């Protein structure tokens, strides 16, 4: 961590000296188990940059902030953050010309639960690419142990798939009925890039598809439609689940879809460049249509 922090400060200093307007990194929070995004514009503030065990926040989403348009930005991205960044580039949401990226070889981070117990972050346990290898500058030790194999990362999904339909429904009903519709999952998601959310503006003046009535169906609709909108885009950075104040296992929904996409459509979990259409943007006649009567059988 100290190596990363020192390198981060060094690069940030060089960046500001060489004309960048703002550096986005992390600094320590109030408690040892916190870390928060840092926006540095002054050389004097560089010493506040700190990468610690809890620097989970995926910073790439901040590139969408309208205040940062046309600014020259330096940003630190871990393996998962970088995957999200690439998607933003694919979807023309950011201009790479204005962005200097420094990669972080992520050693795997920790999370702290409501009761104060800490453990290896779940998202890190699933992670297959902790090091953004493609980047020119990578700080930290490049040899990082992968915590689980590609197939093992779907353990949770498989466990759920093994349940009967009504058991699965009960499970999700139990989880989603805790939702308070704070929209933190959507707002923190680096790939929820729409400026107006079509499924939940959360306001009575807009013609939302769903409203805020405390109906399970409405909350369920919100989460499932959001998952579908992220199909083929979600990079499993785990932000949504991390921020959820009521611990809804949102990543499981996204991972179920990712698992299906990999199996049914033989697509990479995330397109590497914009020549590959996302699974929901592409239609082929021989696409399998599981669950639909009359459609082709599950591949």
């Amino acid at each position: 961590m100290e190596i990363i922090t020192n390198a981060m400060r060094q690069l940030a200093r060089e960046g500001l000296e060489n004309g960048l307007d703002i550096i986005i990194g992390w600094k320590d929070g109030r408690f040892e188990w916190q870390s928060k995004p840092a926006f540095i514009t002054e050389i004097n503030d560089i010493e506040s940059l700190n990468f610690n065990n809890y620097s989970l926040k995926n910073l790439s989403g901040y590139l969408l902030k309208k205040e940062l348009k046309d600014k020259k930005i330096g940003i630190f991205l871990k393996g998962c953050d970088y995957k999200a960044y690439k998607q933003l580039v694919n979807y023309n949401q950011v201009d790479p010309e204005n962005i200097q990226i420094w990669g972080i070889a992520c050693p795997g981070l920790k999370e702290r639960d409501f009761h104060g117990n800490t453990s290896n972050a779940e998202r890190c346990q699933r992670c297959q690419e902790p090091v953004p290898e493609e980047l020119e500058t990578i700080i930290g030790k490049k040899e990082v142990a992968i915590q689980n194999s590609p197939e093992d990362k779907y353990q949770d999904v498989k466990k759920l798939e093994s349940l009967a339909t009504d058991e699965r429904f009960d499970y999700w009903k139990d989880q989603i009925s805790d939702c308070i519709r704070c929209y933190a999952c959507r707002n923190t998601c680096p790939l929820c890039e729409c400026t107006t959310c079509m499924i939940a503006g959360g306001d009575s003046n807009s013609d939302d598809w769903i409203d805020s009535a405390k109906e399970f169906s409405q909350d369920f609709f919100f989460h499932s439609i959001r998952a579908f909108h992220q199909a083929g885009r979600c990079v499993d950075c785990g932000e949504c689940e991390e921020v959820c104040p009521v611990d809804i296992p949102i990543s499981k929904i996204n991972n179920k879809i990712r698992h299906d996409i990999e199996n049914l459509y033989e697509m990479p979990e995330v397109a590497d460049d914009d020549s590959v259409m996302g699974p929901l943007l592409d239609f082929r006649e021989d696409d399998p249509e599981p669950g639909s009567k009359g459609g082709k059988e599950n591949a």
Partner: protein
Amino acid sequence: MTEIAKDPLLPGKAIITAIRQDTEDIKTYQVRDVNGGKPFDFEPGQCAMLSLPPAGEAIFSITSSPLAEMMEFSIKNVGRVTSEIHNLKVGDQIGIRGPYGTPFPVADFQKDDLLFIGGGIGLAPLRSVINYVLKKRDNYGKVDIVCGCRTCNDFVHYEEITEEWPQKPETDVHLTVDKATDDWTGFEGYIPDYLEELNFSPAEKKAIVCGPPIMIKFVVQQLKESGFDPADIYTTLELKMKCGIGKCGRCNIGSKYVCKDGPVFTAKELAGLIETF
């Protein structure tokens, strides 16, 4: 009546009894209760929450005089509720609750000269006071009414403005449009420019201003420059509201809630408030 029946969020029932198309996107609705009277008593400048389920509720200033036997609302079609209102027919029922907010202190205006300045749909709340004052004409001094709109087709209550009001004793109406057509004989230009030309004396005069925020800002500034005491300049604020009773938090500005502590404020009160957005 049980306690529950007094719930402030429960709308009463009202009927649309007449509709007049004023401009391309503004209609004036006459509203009565089911027995043909006024849905409730109010004072000039107060507002009512109109209810059109399932589109929802929205708050509007009452444009008719409190002395009239019914209520009128001039409503511009801008959003979900207002577009639903624009679909209403005579005979349709709506929900209504109120009155909300503080009124213009018409009792304090007695014997004073009054200068009304309205921009566009901002005339709606002013009309309530103007008609009240003109009905009790002897209690007030000279009345000047300055109205401005984008074009001559955007005046609401055009006939009343051009024909009824100027007939009243000691009452002058001054009209201006941002963009004149060939047949326009009045002033062309923005209201602050027109005010400069009209050059009203602030002596013994109260100014009552309503219009878009930017117009209010410049008019109030101009009035102050020409010597009006900020305590003698009255205006109404518009903010999004849901409950109308100072609880939902939406129209909070400083320690005030526009729905109950406003919408009428003097420029003096506003000076400490408006920046607290």
